[in-house]
């Protein structure tokens, strides 16, 4: 599936929730249930520090697609990471570079991407794109 299609699917899922409580409960479940990153990649090099919570990201090229794994010490942040991974992982680097993240607004989680939250997510998205740029260069 294309990134845009996956994003639309996520927006559809979230539209079924009536209020923030249900959205958050879903995210907390996502955060709890997903094994996100191999422990050996939770290194100082892979850490993105926010003042609020930490995020680890690892990227690997599998054939022509980029596979991301990530984790966070905060569960809501982890839930959003799970959503981001679903949208961006296992995609071609160029598609990741071109993709936007507006769907986060649409599912009502915009505040978590605000710089004031300083939770590492904004930097995480930037890091995903940087990995994509790096691997795209490699593929060229």
């Amino acid at each position, binding site marked *: 599936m294309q990134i845009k299609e996956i994003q639309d699917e996520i927006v559809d899922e979230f539209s079924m929730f009536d209020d923030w409580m249900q959205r958050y409960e879903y995210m907390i479940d996502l955060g709890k249930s997903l094994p996100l990153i191999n422990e050996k990649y939770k290194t100082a090099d892979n850490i993105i520090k926010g*003042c609020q*919570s930490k995020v680890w990201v690892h990227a690997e090229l599998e054939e022509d697609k980029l596979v991301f794994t990530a984790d966070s010490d*905060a569960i*809501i942040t982890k839930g959003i990471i799970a959503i981001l991974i679903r949208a961006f992982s296992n995609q071609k680097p160029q598609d990741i570079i071109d993709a936007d993240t507006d769907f986060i607004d649409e599912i009502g989680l915009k505040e978590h991407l605000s710089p004031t939250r300083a*939770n590492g997510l904004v930097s995480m998205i930037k890091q995903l794109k940087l990995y994509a740029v790096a691997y795209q260069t490699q593929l060229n």
Partner: protein
Amino acid sequence: MIDVTEIRKDFPILKREVNGKPLVYLDNAATSQTPQQVIDVIVDYYQNYNANIHRGVHALSQEATDKYEVARQKIQKHFNAKNSYEIIFTSGTTHSINIVANGFTTLLEKGDEILVSAMEHHSNIVPWQMLAERTGAVLKVIPMNLAGELLMDVYDELLSNKTKLVFCNHISNALGTINPIKEIIDKAHAVGAAVLIDGAQAAPHIKADVQKLDVDFYTVSAHKMCGPTGEGMLYGKEEWLNKLPPYQGGGEMIAEVTFEKTTYADLPHKFEAGTPNICGGIAFGAALDYMNAIGFEAIAAYEHELLEYATQELLKIEGLKIYGTAKNKTSVISFNIEGLHPYDIGSILDKLGVAVRTGHHCAQPIMDFYKIPGTVRASFSFYNTMDEVDVLVKAVLRAKGMLE
């Protein structure tokens, strides 16, 4: 006694809703809210007498200058400084500390020692680290115990004739501890060291008397005590302010300028380069008027009741731990719930209309000391109510239920 219902009418922002819920504002240690009386002063300035000060001969400039200098006198009187020119207007505590840290560059030698407490805000650590790097002086830390109280016997051992400067906050922003600053000051003076007390967290709760304390420098931010942001003050003893070189060059701080040499203006203007935050200074004075009309004793007594009630109710929550349990503390409660991240708790509290701070509170060494990523911090002001404490407790319970 405080009539909190009446007081709340002064704060328009307290009537608003957040995420569809009535705002419960418990982030007062980060910034306090502004009463209508201060907002009116800000509006009046821009509507009626906005002008640059200290140089115009026209009526507006005179009027603005007079009000600005009256504000300086109000601050002088409030903190009981000997002279009004010992009050330097700054953009806030961080600016105030940097003036002093910069000034000491020429006064320190390699091997001199600077003591700093273990519970400082980054703004009272980093400028001294930079000063130590510039001068070759050594930065030493006064440790604390698990309750968040400074180990005064270790302080005694650290003090020596090498000690040139001691820095400590009056009240810790992350823990609420009220430090024994009189003892810290007297002991530092006994070895000939100067003392800077960061009063940012204390000024909203305690009226400090700088002469009685015999403190060399005391710093305050207006926005933590019902005033505007971008405004604060540095108190310095006249002899020290005369010794320190100016921090920034520019207009206002000069006596005479030629391309060969500039002579500096007298105090306080030597440290007030450029056009200051004129409206901010005047509003700072108005904020002091407002708080003094309520009375600092009444404020402290009421906030203590809020602290005791909130502590008692929060501790009923299973797995909740409070960081900072000093005997002598102000209305700040830093806490975590076992197994939960403060960011997650804070995010859900926000959805419930409760504003708290989460994170390391710009005091990472404290978080490292307790080996935690951060805390949730609820900080109370005299306009908070017991009902709001109940809302906080319910919201924390709800967050706990969702996250576990």
